[in-house]
């Protein structure tokens, strides 16, 4: 069976098209964007460094550790000078997972207090699952 893959090429698979919905479309969107991110010229200034394939694979592994998966629905994927950034925003709170290179993860958390003052912290972590309690806080 042949179908179009997300980057425009043909993919051959032994399974029928969409037998089971593994991810809701809104979650799948994030992984699709990640898969094509190095090829989207509109995301880069001329000559700008693009993420390595290993960094993209690392980002995929990090995203797969996010539980529950519906946190991914509102995730935005960006690139900056070879880094991958995954960000979430809700009301006065903001979370960014910086993925500068394979196996490197920095979690940035920002919030605005009732006084209007903004605070933040940034932590380098080894285990991608460290982002789950932060996203739980974001959605609380």
């Amino acid at each position, binding site marked *: 069976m042949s179908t179009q893959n997300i980057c425009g090429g043909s993919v051959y698979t032994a399974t029928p098209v969409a037998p089971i919905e593994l991810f809701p479309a809104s979650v799948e969107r994030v992984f699709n964007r990640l898969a094509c991110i190095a090829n989207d010229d509109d*995301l*880069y*200034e001329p000559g700008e460094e693009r993420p390595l394939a290993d960094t993209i694979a690392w980002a995929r592994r990090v995203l797969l550790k996010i539980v529950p998966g519906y946190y991914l629905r509102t995730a935005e994927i960006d690139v*900056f*000078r070879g880094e991958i950034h995954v960000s979430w925003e809700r009301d006065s709170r*903001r979370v960014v997972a910086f993925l500068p290179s394979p196996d490197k993860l920095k979690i940035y958390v920002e919030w605005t207090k009732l006084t209007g003052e903004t605070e*933040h*912290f*940034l932590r380098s972590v080894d285990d991608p699952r460290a982002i789950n309690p932060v996203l739980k806080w974001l959605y609380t």
Partner: protein
Amino acid sequence: MGTNPPRLGDTLADDVVVYRAFAVKGYRERHPKRVRAMAYYRPPDHADGISLGDSPSSAVAHLSRNFGFCSVTVGRIHGLPYGLKVCPDLDDPGHILLCGVPCLIANDDERGRASEIANALAKISTVESLEHYPPQETPPPLS
């Protein structure tokens, strides 16, 4: 952004409006229409500051393509609690530098401050156009 640091003029007055070009698509969001923090991330090769313009044309002048631009008044930038300064580049008429923004790709402390400042700048900026500036005419087919 040359090897010699630019000569900067005095800090601009608070009522001046400055413009930031969207060099890549990720600098802005279409739905809802807003400027994203990325638009104010300073990379290491822009040591002098973030480039702005005194007009939309000046903002996009050094770009081979763009995805629109936003505006912000200098007073709102100076009003942020980060000690930022907006100064004209005396060597390049129309070019303005936003000075004092930390580099994003640096140590964790600087990256954290850069993220907060970029988000604050994005929040006070107003999207003026989401399309290439100046507008480009599409010739009719078969012309």
